[in-house]
């Protein structure tokens, strides 16, 4: 599985790197584009010292932790949401006749290493925030755990988004609200959002476990919404709880695939 992934990704990467100048330009511009979200946070904190009870550095920590996971998924999994294009163009048929999972073929299709710049950008923000905040070193073990959790949650979301497109071939854009919307939602401390919305993204769609709940633990803070402290450690459970239905939905989607044309 993994070796096939690397192989396919490498083939696409080589094709992308054939045009060096445009490759470098895209890497730089992609990083700048991703950094516009940081620019927004900086502009906000040029006008205030605290947002919904969280400081500049704390917000950057939450942003960085979520965005490392999000950009990682965007690079390595995000292409699966282009499935409706492949279905319409008939190229999904070609993926189904290969002895490799179509999920891997989709994820690596047109794989471009230029997106690595975004991960680097998010990682730099996270590193800055970790250095700037005076954190309890005994709690830092949670940082890698929350990033892996975030990767699994976002990857599951993207897989769900792709599965939905077996049915929703006419309006694939609707899934952007869930994939990119989740990326946007987790950039800020959840204390800015309304209680009901936070309940929804904790118990229905477990986005709170990407960076909010584990992040509170790392920052050594109580949840303003008053959830019990054991919730801070439930991230991996939530991730598996989302990955399972995503995998089932994908399998179901393949079995109901209708193909197009004559």
């Amino acid at each position, binding site marked *: 599985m993994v070796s096939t992934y690397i192989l396919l990704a490498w083939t696409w990467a080589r094709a992308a790197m054939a*045009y060096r100048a445009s490759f470098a330009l895209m890497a730089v*511009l992609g990083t700048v584009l991703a950094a516009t979200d940081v*620019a927004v946070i900086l*502009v906000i904190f*040029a*006008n205030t010292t605290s947002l919904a009870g969280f400081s500049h550095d704390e917000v950057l920590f939450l942003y960085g932790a979520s965005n490392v996971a999000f950009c990682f998924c965007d690079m390595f999994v995000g292409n699966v949401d282009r499935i409706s294009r492949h279905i319409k163009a008939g190229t999904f048929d070609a993926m189904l006749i290969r002895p490799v999972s179509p999920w891997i073929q989709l994820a690596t299709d047109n794989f471009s290493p230029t997106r690595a710049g975004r991960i680097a950008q998010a990682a730099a923000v996270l590193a800055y925030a970790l250095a700037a905040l005076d954190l309890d070193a005994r709690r830092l073990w949670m940082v890698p755990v929350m990033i892996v959790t975030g990767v699994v949650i976002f990857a599951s979301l993207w897989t769900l988004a792709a599965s939905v497109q077996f049915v929703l071939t006419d309006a694939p854009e609707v899934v952007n*609200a869930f994939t990119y*919307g989740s990326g946007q939602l987790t950039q*800020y401390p959840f204390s800015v959002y309304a209680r009901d919305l936070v309940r929804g993204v904790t118990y229905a769609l477990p986005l709170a476990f990407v960076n909010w709940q584990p992040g509170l633990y790392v920052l050594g803070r109580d949840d303003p919404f008053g959830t019990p402290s054991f919730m801070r450690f439930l991230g991996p459970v939530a991730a598996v709880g989302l990955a399972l239905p995503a995998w089932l939905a994908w399998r179901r989607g393949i079995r109901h695939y209708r193909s197009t044309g004559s």
Partner: protein
Amino acid sequence: MSTRRSQGPPGPAAALNPLPAARPRAHNPALPSADPRAGPRTARHRAITLRRCETIPFHAPFHAPFHAPLYARLVRYGFRKHATYVWGALAGAFTNSVFGVLRAYVLIALWEARPGLAGYDVTHAVTYCFVTQAFIGPMQLFGGGLDVPERIRTGDIALDLVRPASLQLWSMAEDLGRAGYLFLVRGIPPVLLGAALFGVVRPSGFAGWAGFAACFLAGWAVGFAWRYLVALSVCWLVDDRGVQVGSLVLTTLLSGMMIPLPLVPGPLGELVRALPWAAMAQAPADVYLGTAPPLETLAFQASWAVALLALGALGTRAIRHKVVIQGG
């Protein structure tokens, strides 16, 4: 005609393809004239062409002297063409609405910390957020929306350029139809959702709505003019993705779509509020909120629209030179 043409400023195409200045050009009345000084000066012409765009085929007998019906029809076709993607547009409206809600909460938190910031109250800030999300579709703030790059890539642009009508006006008319459709389907839902969830302000009275309508159109014109320039760049670039992404960065950040521009501090703030991107979202949103004077805002937008459309007209001429005359 060919000699007068060579006296004009050398366009980018001329720089790329040095050509004997007095190369004779077959005078085919079906080919649009590239002479900026040609043409009848009727009031209507001035009204629709903005500085008498030189690509209007004044010598084409079957369209002279008045093209309004043609462009009116193109507006309708543009509208209809996009009306076939109703599900896609609704999906876009949904996404814009979701992002509107998420951004609104962030702005609410900011205005709770700093009431009255930038002359807005909380309701202003929330309204700003949903109105700018509503602009994404009609103003095409994420770029694209034009057929020109694809037509240049496939070479079909040559067919468009020999039509006795300006490519720029043609695209502009179609884009107006697109904007009109997306205003209805992608523009209205986010604002209605914002009104239902948080409450939004509205322009007051007829004058308020009229001012907003004018500034909205002017904002669209600046947006179109900019996207048209980006689209033309394909003609000179092997890979246009760089320009596309560059434009995306500039537009999302500097239009005020992600954050109200009055929040940007210092001289940097002064600068970004004077650039053309501010005319695309910040300016019409401020007129909607009633936090900016409509006439001054309109003048600001119109000057950018004229400047960018004139650049686009020059670019169109350069492309014609490259594609039609040199057969490149």
